[in-house]
Every structure is written in structure tokens, then in C-alpha cells.
């Protein structure tokens, strides 16, 4: 194994040497290397250990299909778990270590358990670790120590991610011969084209041909150049299309910085970007992966895919061994043999399972070609050293093999067992791939609209045919786009690689690995079938075949073919497992994009927010909103020390201020829906339980909204602006939900109603002046409204000018106090707030937050939907039967449900007040209630609970079975902490039952 002298068309740049660290030791390689080629060039054989048996594993492939070479890169905020060495572009100072090996790559405990491996067959854990059952947690504990590859990084991500949306006529997945040709043809028509390829450079497998074909090289460079110059073409390199969803939503991850050395990464640029591409047409030119031959110990380091050996040779000038044995069942191994002679002067032994194929060129070059032979078994300790070979014969249905005829010494084995077209993306939307006998491969069905496949994914093997197929595919889809470009192409003929049917030696099946990452052996598949796990999905699930990070890209088709043989069915009868996204794994960060940290969900602030911050408010998260929770006052201490009031102290002070003088609250977050149209009254009457026919302009009304089951889902005040124009307020948290609810009914059930909804939550800012002195404050600011209690009664609204700003002032109350809510266009919100603060100074006006609001409304027994209700309370249960009108001309939502037998039960849970016997005891909210101290049967729970400053005692709201008819009864609250607290059932209006305060100071 060594690096060859400089080669024409090699990918590496020998003028740049990079240092890298592998397993703590320093090595060198060139720019342009992958970590895999760098490891191979440095003679490193063992790069991983297998999942179950801890077997030594080497590099098998050269691309994303690699199952063995899993590594961890870097550390700290830059750590990358489970990276595939074959995909990693080497950069200077790269630090990598194996992702497997317990405790180390050199010595693995699982390998030391070798005598037990014969018991550790597929599904053995279902049959064991169960006696005695109570020991399972211990068994599991030890099993978990053996699990997984890399560790989860220990630090938060040092980099960031973003998303971009693309809308194109044509998206071409794959930048190989077919993809580039398709892209060029499509682009020449003027269509916008996006080319997506996962590799660092375009070219795909074509790059492996450059060494042997100048023509290929020329075609590539001219096509690439042409594409790069076209303004309607965008090329995304290092980008993986990982999912194709319905209607051609193609998801792509672009790796923007992973190839850059840590020192040179640009902090301002995202590490990876998710492109969400909507393409009118998609061309899948995704190519194919080779699959290996099966034989015993096929997992030894030094055994690899023929195409991988060829890529390492041609693109990286790395010779994987001096004494190669090449084995295959198709024409492709011959190309590798020729390249080996030409470039490295190495003469491999070539074993072809088939007979009668023209090998004269190889034989003339002095290569030992044996047709009708294959490998039965490989052996070696750290690396393959020998293979035993046998004669094989195909009778048109089945293979038979002789005993081993000979052992060959070797230091590398490269095999080709045919090709697996990359049908994944096509299958993501439910298409089933079609099996071709001629190709011995599953091909994409492409039976969904606006999609076509081209190139080797269709089974083409030579590059010219791929170029032609790409152009042909482009012409097909241009027709659909009503575009064209001359000249048209015909569908190329399939040139077969003459892949022989699947073969698996019968001996030593317990050493023949089908899925290397999960250690699934041929014998495991046999066992699964013996135990009646016969569906391919059962085989997969029982053996774990295809469960790995490679999702069975190499192994699955082998497993399917073996199952078919054992079940005596055809391969298509057995079928494939489901292909699902992700095509290759995608970082969570890239999926999340910018939506992390504070951008995880939008944060909404009221127009007055800055004032609240300046006054030192603490905030509560209510839905997306940040609402002032309370306004702690600074407390001065001796020696200039300062602290702030706690919640309790602040709320006591705020509550008393409102009850005794005046307070001010920011009510801007309440949902506001502007409702217009000739049928508004009827609409309101249908969605609210009460009547709306006669509400006059200038008036407001409180309404309760129910769902179809008659249960409360929202409440709020709606103002009548005119006969055809109303403004509804909803709860803060319910704003979006209720808006959707109303639109749904309007659009799907009541399309005949002429009603139009507009969300105006953000358009208005609301400042509520609350308390006996409220009138005195607002009168200072507004002279064109008569605030006299009779002239402007409760539940009216007026239009006027407040501090020079046009305003709608509503006299409504959520505290039982005199209260004016000043609604102004949002941009004036903060100004009005400050004006109110200024005007209220003489009355010591006190800003208050949601907590005080909650206490004040609980003192009055007003509900908060979502806190005192939970979707199981009807208006009657909430003791709000007064808000239900059953005599309206229109039935309202939930009306019928209110008469159902369960809804009219008299022992339903009903909303009541509770007075703890210990007046200083505040019940924890949520606590369940029982009838007697020893009882466990629950009769309700505490929904709201506070220490009422004005009453000087604790109060609570609760739902209690038949509670409304049990006033004065003692029941018990059973807290989570184990306390049993006696309470008396009471009216839920605790304060000012006579409503004397509503008009404030007269």
C-alpha cells in the first residue's frame, strides 16, 4: 500500500502537505485527499470495530456507502460524531479518531468474547436476559455500555446553521456524466437549473475515467465550464439531496465549512445550510453504488469494493495493495485490472465467476484471469493475507461451487458483485423500485409526476450512454415545461455489464457478512427465516440488517437476494424495505437552521415593552408574548445596598394600589379580531353562546365561546362599532387558535355568511387604567369624552382623543374596579402609557403585571380560560349560565351538546370558590380535592389560588362535583407534598359582591 508517483488527472495537490492526527498520532497527506485516502496512503488497515462482535474493520468503499470507517472528528464545540472517513475532505490539522472500539481500537472487549459469538446470533436477546426478569435492568445497563459509535459531543455547538428557499424549473440531483448532461440540455432551453452534488467536485464516477479516457476528461471540462457560465444555472457542491417529498420538495444539505480547517472557518458563515427546493421538475441522476461479492471473512481489512480501489488509484494515486486479487461477477473488474497494470505496474489475479467473456486484452497484458472462479473464504489477522478460491458453475437457475481448489496469497482483495442504483429519493414518496433481471438490480420506478431518472441509476454503465441518457431525460421534462432545445436525443441502448445472478457460498455462513456495520451474517438471515421472520421487513427488524448509519446501502440488496434464495422466491417477490429520508444522515442543527436559542419561537413584545423593562418588570412567558409578571420595587438598604421586592411583596402592593387608588396595566397582548360584513351579528350569535342581535353601536358585550361539545374554549369582550363592524377580543394565548377556529367555520361550514375577519392584535396597543381613581386620571388626558358614570356606563365604549391621539376607550373591567381601556394605534402605545403614568403621578398610579391581574380577577371570581377551564367545563359548569341564550334565532356552536345526557348531569364538576380553614394557607394550584380526609376518590381540583391582600386571607377557585349545591361544605385538598388541607366551599365571588366599586370614586 503506498502513494504512487504523480499521476495525470489526480485529485490531490502535492504542493500542499497537510498534517493530520489519527488516534493521537501525527500523519501527513495532501490537499485533495479524503481522510480515507489519507489513512490508506499511510498504510492504516484497521479503522473500526464492528458493532456486535468487535471485529476489526478496514475501509470498504470510497463514498457515502461506507459502513466501517466511522470516525469522530475534533472536539469541544466542533466535535463531529460518526463521520465517515470516506466523505471527509482532509484539511490541515484535522484531528480524527475511530468511533468504535470498546475500550479501544486495538483491544476490543467484544472481540475478546469470541467463544460466545456463536450464541450471539440474530435476536438472541429476545430469548435471554429475561431470567429472572427483575435482573433485566442490570443486563440492560451492561448492554448499554456496548452501544453506539461516537460519543455525543459534550459541548454546545460552536457553529450555526441556516435555511434557504429555492424555486427552480429543474433540479438535477447528481453532478456526474448524466446529471451534467441533463443540466446543460435543460439550461440551454432557458430553464432555471439547480445542480446538486454531494462531492467536493463535480464529475461523479466519471472522474475515475479521466485517466483512461481523454475524451471523457474533455467532455467534462467543457460541460462544466459551460454550466458555470450560464446565469440560469446554480451549482451546489458538497450538497446532499437527502429527501424528496411530495410535489417535488427537495431537501438539500450544503456543507459550507466542514472542509475548512478549524483555524480558517468563517464564524459569520453558517456551517451547513438546508436548501428547501421546490422544483417544477426533478431529474434524478444519482448514480449507483457497487455491491461486493460474498465469501467467508469478507469483512477483513484489505477487502474492498473494486470501484473504491479504482477511485483510490485513479483519483488519489493510492495503491491499496501490491498483490491484489480481483473478483467479480461482471465486466467492471476488468477496467480496474487494466488500470492497475497501467498506473502501478501491478498485475492482479482476476477471478470472474462467469465464463466465456473476452479477457484477451488482460491476458495479453500478462494478467492471470480465471473465469468460472470465485472466492470462498479470506483469511488473515489484521488484514487479508490469503484467499481460498473455488470453481463455480451456474446452471441457469442456481450456482454450485466446488470445494476450495487453491489458496492465493494476496494483500488486497477487490470485488464487484454488481450495482445498486440509488433509487432512494424516488422511493421517498412511496414509489416501489422495479427489479431488472438483465441488470440484477432495482431500478427507480419514477412513477410520480414531474420526475425522471437518468444515467447509471437507470442501469447505464458507460459514460457516453449516461451523457446521452441525461440529455434524453432533459428533453422529456422540457416538453412538460413547454420548453425545447435542439437537437433532440433518443434514449440510449443499455450496454450491459453482464452481471451474473447473486451467489452466496453455503459454507461458513456465520462468517459471511451481509451488513458489516451491524454484524448481520448470512446465517442470521437463514435463522430469521427458519423462525418464520419471512417478510423482508421482519428479516430486517429481527437481524438489524440495514439499521446502521449507512442504512444498508451496500448490504440490503445482498440480504434481499439471499432471502429470496432461501425462501425460493424471486427477488422482486421478496421486495425491498422502505426507503426513507435521510439519504445520508443530517445534523439536527441543519434541520433546525436559525430556529435555535431565542429564535426558537418568535418572541412578541408589546409596544410598551421598553417602558416595562425600564421600570424593572419581571416577565412571564404567555404563548409567544413576554408580559410583565410583576413590577418589583427596589428596596434601599443601609450602606447603599439594593435589592428588589419578591413576587409576593410586589403583588400585595400592586393589588392594594388598584383596589384603593389606581393601577395601570398593559393589556395589548389580548387577541383582537376585526369583524366586518352584513352578517356579523348572526356570525357572533353562532360562535358565542349569548345574543348579539340588539347590541347597539357604542356598546360592548362579554361573550363565552364553546366548541362543538359545548365546552368553553375562549371568552372576551366584543365591541360594536356599527351594525356591520365589530371588534372581538380573545384571550392572549388563544388569539391564533380562535382566529383559525372562526375562519374554519366561516370557510368550510358557513360560506354563505358575508363576514370578513382580520387579525388586528398587533395594530392596537391597550393601556388599562384601573381603580377607584381611574376616572380622575383619564379625565386629565381626554376632554372630548364625558366620563360621567351615567353618560359613559359600564360596558360602553367611546371614540375620543387621549393625549392628542385618536383612541377607542372601553369601560370594561377584569377586576371589579372602575376601569378604562385606552386602545390606540400601536405606534402610540408607549407614548400613551407614559402619559398615563405622568397623569397618575398625583394618585401614586401603580403599574401592575399578570400576577396582580390574576389575583384581582380571582377576588371577583372571573375565570381565566385555560387555567380555570380545561376543555371539560360548560358555561353552566362555570356558573355562567347567564351568558347562554337558548332562545336565539340561530343555534350556536355547542348548543346541541349542552342538552346531552352527560352534560345535563347535576353532579358535574362546577366552578366554585374555596376558603381554606387556615386563612393564611395558600393551596397549591392543581391540587386535587376529596370529600373526606381518608378518601382517594377525587371530586375536583384547585384551579386558581392566591393570598388576597384586600381580604387578608387565602382564597381559591376550584371545580368540585356538584359544587354549586354544596356551599358551606368542608372538603379536603390533598397536596402532592402529602398535606391534607380542609377547605370550605364558597361562592367564587369573594369581594364586592354588591358591585359597589364598579363606578369608582364619584
Amino acid at each position, binding site marked *: 500500500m503506498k502513494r504512487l508517483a504523480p499521476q495525470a488527472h489526480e485529485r490531490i495537490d502535492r504542493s500542499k502537505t497537510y498534517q493530520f492526527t489519527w488516534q493521537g498520532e501525527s500523519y501527513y497527506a495532501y490537499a485533495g485527499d479524503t481522510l480515507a485516502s489519507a489513512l490508506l496512503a499511510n498504510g492504516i488497515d484497521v479503522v473500526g470495530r464492528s458493532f456486535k462482535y468487535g471485529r476489526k474493520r478496514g475501509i470498504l468503499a470510497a463514498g457515502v456507502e461506507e459502513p466501517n470507517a466511522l470516525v469522530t472528528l475534533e472536539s469541544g464545540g466542533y466535535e463531529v*460524531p*460518526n463521520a465517515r472517513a470516506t466523505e471527509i475532505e482532509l484539511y490541515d490539522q484535522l484531528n480524527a479518531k475511530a468511533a468504535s472500539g470498546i475500550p479501544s481500537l486495538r483491544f476490543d472487549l467484544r472481540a475478546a468474547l469470541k467463544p460466545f459469538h*456463536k450464541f450471539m446470533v440474530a435476536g438472541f*436477546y*429476545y*430469548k*435471554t436476559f*429475561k431470567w429472572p*426478569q427483575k435482573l433485566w435492568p442490570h443486563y440492560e445497563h451492561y448492554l*448499554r*455500555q456496548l*452501544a*453506539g*459509535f461516537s*460519543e*455525543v459531543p459534550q*459541548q*454546545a*455547538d460552536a457553529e450555526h446553521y441556516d*435555511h434557504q428557499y429555492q424555486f427552480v424549473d429543474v433540479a438535477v440531483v447528481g453532478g456526474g456524466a448524466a446529471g451534467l448532461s441533463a443540466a446543460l440540455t435543460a439550461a440551454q432551453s432557458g430553464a432555471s437549473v439547480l445542480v446538486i452534488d454531494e462531492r467536493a467536485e463535480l464529475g461523479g464516477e466519471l472522474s475515475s475515467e479521466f485517466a483512461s479516457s481523454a475524451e471523457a476528461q474533455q467532455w467534462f471540462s467543457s460541460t462544466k465550464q459551460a454550466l458555470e457560465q450560464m446565469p440560469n444555472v446554480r451549482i451546489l457542491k458538497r450538497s446532499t439531496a437527502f429527501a424528496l*417529498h411530495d410535489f417535488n420538495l427537495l*431537501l438539500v444539505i450544503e456543507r459550507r465549512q466542514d472542509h475548512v480547517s478549524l483555524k480558517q472557518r468563517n464564524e459569520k458563515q453558517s456551517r451547513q445550510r438546508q436548501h428547501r427546493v421546490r422544483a417544477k421538475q426533478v431529474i434524478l441522476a444519482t448514480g449507483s453504488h457497487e455491491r461486493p461479492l460474498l465469501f467467508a471473512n469478507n469483512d477483513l481489512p484489505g477487502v474492498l469494493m473494486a470501484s473504491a480501489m479504482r477511485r483510490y488509484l485513479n483519483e488519489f494515486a493510492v495503491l491499496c495493495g501490491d498483490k491484489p486479487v480481483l473478483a467479480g461477477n461482471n465486466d467492471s473488474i476488468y477496467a480496474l485490472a487494466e488500470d492497475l497494470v497501467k498506473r502501478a505496474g501491478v498485475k492482479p489475479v482476476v477471478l470472474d465467476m462467469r465464463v466465456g467473456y473476452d479477457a484477451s486484452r488482460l491476458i495479453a497484458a500478462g494478467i492471470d484471469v480465471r473465469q468460472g472462479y470465485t472466492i470462498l473464504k479470506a483469511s488473515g489477522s489484521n488484514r487479508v493475507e490469503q484467499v481460498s478460491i473455488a470453481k463455480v458453475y451456474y446452471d441457469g437457475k442456481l450456482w454450485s461451487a466446488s470445494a476450495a481448489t487453491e489458496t492465493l496469497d494476496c494483500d488486497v482483495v477487490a470485488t464487484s458483485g454488481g450495482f445498486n442504483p440509488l433509487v432512494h429519493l424516488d422511493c*421517498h414518496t*412511496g414509489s416501489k423500485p422495479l427489479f431488472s433481471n438483465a441488470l440484477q438490480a432495482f431500478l427507480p420506478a419514477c412513477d410520480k409526476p414531474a420526475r425522471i431518472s437518468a444515467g447509471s441509476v437507470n442501469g447505464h454503465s458507460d459514460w457516453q450512454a449516461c451523457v446521452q441518457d441525461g440529455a434524453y431525460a432533459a428533453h422529456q421534462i422540457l416538453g412538460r415545461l413547454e420548453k425545447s432545445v435542439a437537437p433532440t436525443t433518443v434514449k440510449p441502448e443499455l450496454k450491459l455489464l453482464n452481471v451474473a445472478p447473486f451467489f452466496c457460498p453455503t459454507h461458513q455462513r456465520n462468517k459471511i457478512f451481509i451488513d458489516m456495520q451491524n454484524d448481520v451474517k448470512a446465517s442470521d438471515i437463514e435463522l430469521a427465516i*427458519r*423462525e418464520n421472520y*419471512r*417478510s423482508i421487513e421482519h428479516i430486517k*427488524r429481527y437481524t*438489524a440488517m440495514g439499521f446502521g*448509519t449507512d442504512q444498508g446501502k451496500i448490504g440490503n440488496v445482498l440480504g434481499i437476494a439471499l432471502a429470496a434464495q432461501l425462501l425460493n422466491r424471486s427477488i422482486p417477490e421478496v421486495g425491498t424495505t422502505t426507503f*426513507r*429520508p*435521510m439519504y445520508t*444522515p443530517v*445534523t439536527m*442543527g441543519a*434541520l*433546525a437552521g436559525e*430556529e*435555535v*436559542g431565542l429564535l*426558537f419561537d418568535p418572541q412578541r413584545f408589546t409596544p410598551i415593552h421598553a417602558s416595562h423593562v425600564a421600570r424593572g418588570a419581571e416577565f412571564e*412567558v404567555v404563548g409567544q408574548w413576554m408580559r410583565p409578571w410583576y413590577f418589583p420595587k427596589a428596596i434601599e438598604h443601609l450602606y447603599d445596598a439594593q435589592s428588589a421586592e419578591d413576587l409576593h411583596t410586589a403583588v400585595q402592593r400592586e393589588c392594594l394600589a388598584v383596589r384603593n387608588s389606581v393601577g395601570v396595566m398593559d393589556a395589548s397582548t389580548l387577541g383582537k379580531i376585526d369583524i366586518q360584513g352584513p352578517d356579523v351579528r348572526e356570525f357572533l350569535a353562532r360562535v358565542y353562546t349569548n345574543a348579539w342581535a340588539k347590541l347597539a353601536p357604542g356598546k360592548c358585550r362579554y361573550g363565552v365561546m364553546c366548541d362543538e*361539545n359545548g*365546552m368553553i374554549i375562549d371568552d372576551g369582550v366584543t365591541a360594536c362599532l356599527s351594525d356591520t363592524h365589530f371588534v372581538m377580543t380573545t384571550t392572549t394565548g388563544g388569539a391564533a387558535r380562535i382566529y383559525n377556529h372562526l375562519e374554519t367555520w366561516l370557510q368550510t361550514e358557513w360560506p354563505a355568511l358575508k363576514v370578513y375577519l382580520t387579525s388586528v392584535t398587533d395594530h392596537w396597543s391597550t393601556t388599562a387604567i384601573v381603580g377607584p381613581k381611574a376616572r380622575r386620571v383619564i379625565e386629565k388626558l381626554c376632554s372630548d369624552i364625558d366620563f360621567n358614570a351615567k353618560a359613559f356606563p359600564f360596558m360602553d365604549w367611546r371614540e375620543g382623543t387621549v393625549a392628542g391621539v385618536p383612541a377607542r376607550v372601553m369601560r370594561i373591567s377584569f377586576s371589579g374596579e372602575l376601569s378604562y381601556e385606552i386602545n390606540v394605534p400601536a405606534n402610540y402605545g408607549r407614548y400613551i402609557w407614559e402619559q398615563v403614568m405622568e397623569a397618575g403621578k398625583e394618585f401614586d398610579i401603580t403599574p401592575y403585571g399578570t400576577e396582580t391581574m390574576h389575583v384581582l380577577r380571582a377576588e371577583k371570581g372571573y375565570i381565566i380560560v*385555560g*387555567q380555570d377551564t380545561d376543555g371539560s367545563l360548560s358555561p353552566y359548569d362555570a356558573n355562567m349560565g347567564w351568558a347562554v341564550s337558548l332562545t336565539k334565532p340561530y343555534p350556536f356552536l355547542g348548543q346541541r*351538546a349542552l342538552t346531552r*345526557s352527560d*352534560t345535563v348531569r347535576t353532579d358535574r364538576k362546577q366552578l366554585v370558590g374555596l376558603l381554606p380553614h387556615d386563612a393564611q394557607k395558600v393551596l397549591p*394550584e*392543581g391540587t*386535587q380535592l376529596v370529600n373526606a380526609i381518608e378518601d*382517594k376518590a*377525587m371530586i375536583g*381540583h*384547585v384551579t386558581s389560588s392566591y393570598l388576597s391582600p384586600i381580604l387578608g386571607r387565602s382564597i381559591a377557585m376550584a371545580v368540585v362535583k356538584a359544587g354549586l349545591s354544596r356551599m358551606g361544605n368542608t372538603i379536603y385538598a*390533598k397536596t*402532592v407534598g402529602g398535606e391534607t388541607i380542609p377547605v370550605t366551599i364558597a361562592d367564587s365571588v369573594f369581594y364586592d359582591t354588591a358591585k359597589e366599586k364598579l363606578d369608582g370614586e364619584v
Partner: protein
Amino acid sequence: MKYSWLALLKEGLKGHQDWTPTWPDVTPQTAYDVIIVGGGGHGLATAYYLARDFPTKKIAVLEKGWIGGGNTGRNTTIVRSNYLWDEAALLYEHALKLWEGLTEELDFNVMFSQRGVYNLGHTLQDMRDIERRVSANLLNGVDAEVVSVAELKERIPILETGKQVRYPVMGASFQARGGVARHDAVAWGFARAASRLGVDIVQNCEVIGMDVSGGRIHGVETTRGFIKADQVGCVPAGHASVLAKMANVRLPLESHPLQAFVSEPMKPVLHTVVMSNAVHGYVSQSDKGDLVIGAGIDSYTGYAQRGSPHLIDHCAAAMIELFPIFSRTRLNRQWGGIVDTCPDACPIISPIPEVKGLYFNCGWGTGGFKATPGSGHVFAQTIGHDTPHPLAAPFHIQRFTTGALIDEHGAAGVAH
């Protein structure tokens, strides 16, 4: 053959040649006493408990594809019983008790791992709901605990418990007896145990019609011919409405896609189950090392077993919100199942009043895996005695007429 170390040892030495089918493949007979439609966990469990408790009945399970291939084989396997309402809590607790002995009962290791389940709270209202649910659980005999942020930090060090995030964690409820199980093993274990009691398990046999006349059922039409039966129990999850239609019955169900995904396997760092309704996501780490993550339900209805990508993105964001160290880990595979949801997020376990001999067990929606043995047991009793088992009675389909809904939406949110 009983499964044990000894059996494995013997077989291992012989090259595993003598293992017998876990359940035999059979050709359906022309008549049975009871037919169970749907070979998911619930259907197979129903068949098992029927065969165990009513040994004279001839029973078949008809599955249109391969057993366990529906939601049973697609779910994130969270098992818990800390539901809010008495009816739900008692049913799920019945199931949890059965889980605790299931491996032994079935002679099949279902890997029931009682690693505990945390439900996080992120708002004051979340914390009220947690207090309420835990208080109810304790009174219902369900183990439950309210956990403070400080304790959470200690118990799950990788959880973000700081205040600087968008929705800081304020606390959690914890059920220590909750956990996860191996979903496939549950289907296979029930299939094996049922077939050993004489139940015919018929795969690739889709029910395409029902013979209903004179107010009762006489049998089912299948892709493998007509099969007579006096009693038919339907347990088809996402396809419940489709099946009901064959008997001219309408169910109050909507079928939606629900998605989940797994990361690549990594060394275990998360040894419990963490769920958060506020940020929409839940996660556990399997014994293989994959992070198993569940997303929210897709809002549209449909039968394609795949969902929309924006939900996956949002769920990944939620995971990073809870566990910032997951940002650089990679997701390996995503999938979807079709969940049958009732308006009150609770199942229907019920005789069908209009059709004698026809029973439905459906509506488990996003959270029925945890109920598998309990659901099977009470449904078997309901069919066997032709009268609802007391634990199943509140889940009678009649509740949509009477209004006696059991609304788990309220405090539990999405009920996985």
C-alpha cells in the same frame, strides 16, 4: 421450545438449526368463533388474552401485511400511566402492571425498560397542570413526583436548565415506573404466545368486506376468501374508519400522519425519557444508542405513512432547545405512521351497538403503544363476555352521544 440461556446454549452448539417458527404461518380456515382484524400489538394481545381466558374459542388474527407493521412497529415506545383523568389513568395503569410481568408471561424478552419518564413544564400553566396531574396520579395509585429544576439538573445533567433559553424549563413531573420497550418484540412475543395457545395468525390477509345482516355480523370477506365468524374484533388503528365503513358504521375518528426519527447510534448519554409538550418533542436513547425522537402530529388527514418536513425541522429545533449538545448529532432516518385520533384523545374500546358481534378497539392515536397489553386484555374480556370490561366501559362509543368525553387534551396535551 422455552426460550432461555440453556436453550440458546444448546442451539448455539448445534449451529442454531433447530429453532422453530416463532409463530407458524397458516392458511386461514373457513370459520372461527372470533376473528381479530389487525395484527398489530393490540390485535395480537387481544387474541392472546382471549385464547388464554376463553380456551374453548377458535380464534384467528387477520393481518393485511406483516404483523407489527403498523403503528406497533413505528412508534417511539414510550410507556407510562400518569394520565390525568381517572378513567384513563386506571386503564393505562392496568396496562403498566401487565407490562411489568410481560416478558415472563410471554416467554419473550420485550425489553421493557423502566427508566422513568419526565414531562417537562415550561410555563406557569404547565406547572399548574403538572401539580394537578401528579396530585391525581398519587390518589389513583399511580407513582408520580413533581421535580424541581435543581433536581432535574442533577438527574439529567445534559438537559438545558438555564434561564437564557426561549422557554426555560420550570420543573417536571416524573414517573419512575414508566419507560420504553422494544416494539417489534411486543408483536412477536404476543404472536408467539397466542399461536402456542392455538390462535391462527394469518398474514397477507386483508379484510375487504363485512357480512352484516339482521343487525349482526356473520363473517368477513378477505383477500384470501370469505371467513365466517360470530364475533369480529377490529383493531386496525389508522384504518379503523375504513373498516367500520365496511359494516356501514361511522366512527368519530380522524386519521393523521405522525412522524418520528432516530439519530445515528452514539454512546448512551440519556438514560431516561424526556417529553415536552410546550416545545413539542420527546426523546429517549435506545439500547443501541440511537436517539429516538418523536415529532408533532401533522394537521392534515391522510393515509400515506409520511408527514411534512417542517415538523421534523421544528422538532429538531426543540431537541436542541432542550439538549444543546445534540446540535451536531445527525439524524439517520425518519418515518411516519397513521394515527387514529378521537376528538377527546382517548380510545374507543367498544361493542358496536348497531351490529351485534362487532367490536372496535381503536382511537389510540398518538399514544396507544403503552396500553398494548391492557388494551388487549380488556378488549378480550369485552369480546369474551360480550359486555364491556369495567375498565373499558368509560371508553364505550356511546360517550360521543352522551357527551361523557374523557378529555386528555386539557392537561396532558399531546398524549404519547
